[in-house]
């Protein structure tokens, strides 16, 4: 065990701290950077450009695709994350295009696709949505039915998507469609890039638990897109999609962000009082706080262990599969404590004079999104036990004449 950083990395940390010192005042507010209701504003894009220029985001993306072109250095990545979180400064745009599509294109896109989309995406000029889920295909995504047929040099798409986050302001959609209806379900899917301005797309907002309309239904009627918009091979979209889902799981489980939330909770508990007693002085609340802190430290250090394993060329084990699952529940419990600490005031929501600086009720409600989105917690447990621990899948059942029967 050796957690010392090399001189190069210590110098790098100083450099990051210097940058933050200089730019802290002008960085846009975290929330503004990754809003779920509108495309990035000019000031957010300016910030994104500064970050790319300095290699604090899009660090390892090659220069020819608009990135910084830095060598892959996990420790530098870690240092950037630690320092930005400590300074409460945004590390720039995330979103499904940057976090999911770009890595996929880098891995599986054609040269032309890379040149066309990566730079524009990481700079915030093109916003993407993810068209995977359908009314009948959620956890069982591979049963999706939206179909595309080839007509000349075009795909013609018909069907319906649902839960499509950001579709109402996106420029593009990476979408899964069935192109080989006769193939087994995992083998007939293709991964396409669809401009949202194409005729035949109708986006209807769905209001969520938090009252925002962050996701949508998307109806597709004879939507025609060029056949060069295919990523990977026809019928191999499931593999392409899985490459993307891997990145999504990383994005949703980020203990560094949870740490920032815990610090906000500690601040709240030092300020909020009931009967004149600060929450932090009430042993029951304090114990809940310490429990969460212990779990958080465990997850944070676990992530460091995973990073170190990666760095040292150790084969991944079940360790990586648990992060999203554990972080989602930890966040949920953390926000729940924020609400409980505020008592009745904790139910206030969406802007009220009695609310604290942060909207704990809204964060609590919002936290369901990572328990459900990107593969539900129960599905994660299937993945951990099956892929991580080598346990069998459960058999399929069907309703027969005499009731339920195994297939």
């Amino acid at each position, binding site marked *: 065990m050796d957690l010392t950083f090399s001189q190069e990395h210590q110098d790098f940390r100083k450099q990051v701290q210097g940058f933050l010192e200089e730019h802290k005042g002008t960085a846009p507010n975290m929330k503004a950077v990754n809003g779920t209701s509108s495309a990035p504003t000019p000031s957010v894009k300016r910030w994104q450009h500064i970050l790319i220029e300095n290699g604090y985001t899009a660090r390892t993306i090659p220069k020819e695709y608009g990135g910084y072109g830095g060598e892959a250095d996990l420790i530098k990545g870690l240092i950037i994350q630690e320092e930005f979180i400590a300074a409460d400064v945004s590390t720039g745009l995330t979103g499904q295009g940057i976090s999911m599509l770009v890595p996929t294109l880098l891995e599986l896109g054609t040269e032309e696709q890379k040149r066309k989309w990566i730079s524009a995406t990481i700079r915030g000029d093109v916003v993407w949505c993810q068209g995977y889920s359908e009314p009948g295909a959620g956890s069982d995504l591979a049963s999706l039915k939206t179909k595309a047929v080839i007509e000349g040099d075009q795909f013609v798409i018909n069907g319906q998507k649902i839960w499509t986050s950001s579709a109402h302001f996106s420029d593009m959609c990476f979408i899964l469609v069935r192109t080989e209806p006769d193939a087994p379900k995992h083998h007939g899917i293709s991964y396409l890039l669809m401009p949202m301005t194409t005729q035949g797309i109708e986006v209807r907002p769905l209001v969520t638990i938090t009252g925002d309309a962050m996701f949508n239904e998307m109806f597709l009627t004879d939507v025609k897109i060029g056949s060069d918009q295919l990523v990977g091979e026809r019928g191999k979209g499931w593999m392409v999609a899985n490459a993307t889902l891997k990145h999504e799981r990383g994005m949703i489980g980020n203990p560094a962000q949870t740490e920032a939330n815990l610090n906000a909770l500690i601040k709240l508990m030092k300020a909020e009082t009931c009967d004149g007693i600060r929450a932090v002085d009430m042993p029951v609340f304090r114990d809940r706080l*310490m429990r969460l802190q212990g779990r958080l430290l465990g997850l944070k250090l676990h992530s460091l262990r995973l990073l170190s394993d990666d760095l040292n060329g150790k084969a991944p084990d079940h360790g990586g599969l648990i992060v999203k699952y554990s972080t989602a529940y930890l966040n949920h419990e953390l926000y729940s404590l924020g609400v409980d600490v505020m008592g009745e005031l904790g139910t206030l929501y969406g802007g009220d004079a009695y609310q604290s600086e942060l909207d704990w009720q809204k964060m609590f409600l919002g936290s369901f999104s990572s328990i459900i989105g990107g593969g539900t917690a129960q599905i994660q447990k299937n993945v951990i036990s099956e892929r991580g621990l080598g346990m069998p899948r459960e058999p399929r059942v069907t309703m027969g004449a005499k009731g339920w029967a195994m297939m």
Partner: protein
Amino acid sequence: MNFGLSDEQGLLQDAIRGFLEGQTPLDSIRKFAADGNGLQASIWQGLIDLGATGVIIPEQFGGSDLGMFDATVIMEAIGRTVAPVPYLSTAVLAPIALLGSGSDAQQQDGLNKISAGDVTFGVGLTEATGVRRDAGLTLTGTKLSGKALFVMDGLKADQLILAVGSDTLVSVSATAAGLTRNRLNVSDKTRGIAEVLLDHVDCELIGAAGSATQTIEKMIDAGRIGLAAESFGAAEILFYRARDYALERNQFERPIGSFQSIKHLCAEMIADLEPCRSLIWYAAYAYDELPEEASLMACHAKANTQEVAKMVARSATEIHGGMGFTDLMGLHYWLKRIELNRQLLGGPEATREAAAKLQGLVA
């Protein structure tokens, strides 16, 4: 940077695990429990021969001058095998006491003997971590009187190190006149936990009276990390036995491991366990290298691991069905080790409160 075992630490782990696993088939564990000594001579000698008692002792006193991290690797192996050895008290806590507060002569004598395996220690810190009933010691000059409760590894030890209040450390011979020790009948019969009664017993102070606060704190930190590692080792064994049993045992014409409720219990166990490993490693590393973080990390490592280990012990027992409740499988030895460790040097509530205090969150 390497968050994990170095090559040498990996070799140490293999050697200790290999040796202990060979010594602890279930039948032997049953015998050790029936003896109830908490000290099995041949296993203890084997650990001595492997150099395990000297890992945190400087070379000048015959040790290998490694660190708490290495001791933690050994504690984990002890937990995996529920081995009956007074390792924590003798090889971790006693050296810390002597190195922190002992005189040159005490260090010379005590540390050399520990490295060589010529002495065993019991340690009683209950007065510093929570007084129960009428426990308590008074020191008049070098005469010690009163009662020490829950002296770890104290039942068969040659020498006892006791905290008087939370600022003074003394060492007494277990055979001194006026000293009586009684077995405390804890459910984990592989440990030798004692009540020690003292009536004007001659003792040796380790450092001047009132001067050992910091040393005692370090002992508590190290003890918490060591116990957490031991419980982690025990829990990991219980977890993998449950997973393996689930793949073997059939009901309704299928392995019970194909039932989702069983799979999900397994997923929950491993999801909670894995971060504990990292937390314990980091706490041990902090003890060696980042002293300002050590106490807080020790509290969280202990509290979090004990909560998780208890959940794992429960789920693993449940997955074994009726077998889990019997002596046939012997799972209960691991469960009982976890249960005793949970309470020693402060249960989860107490250690979390200590963590809050360390951060200035307690008025």
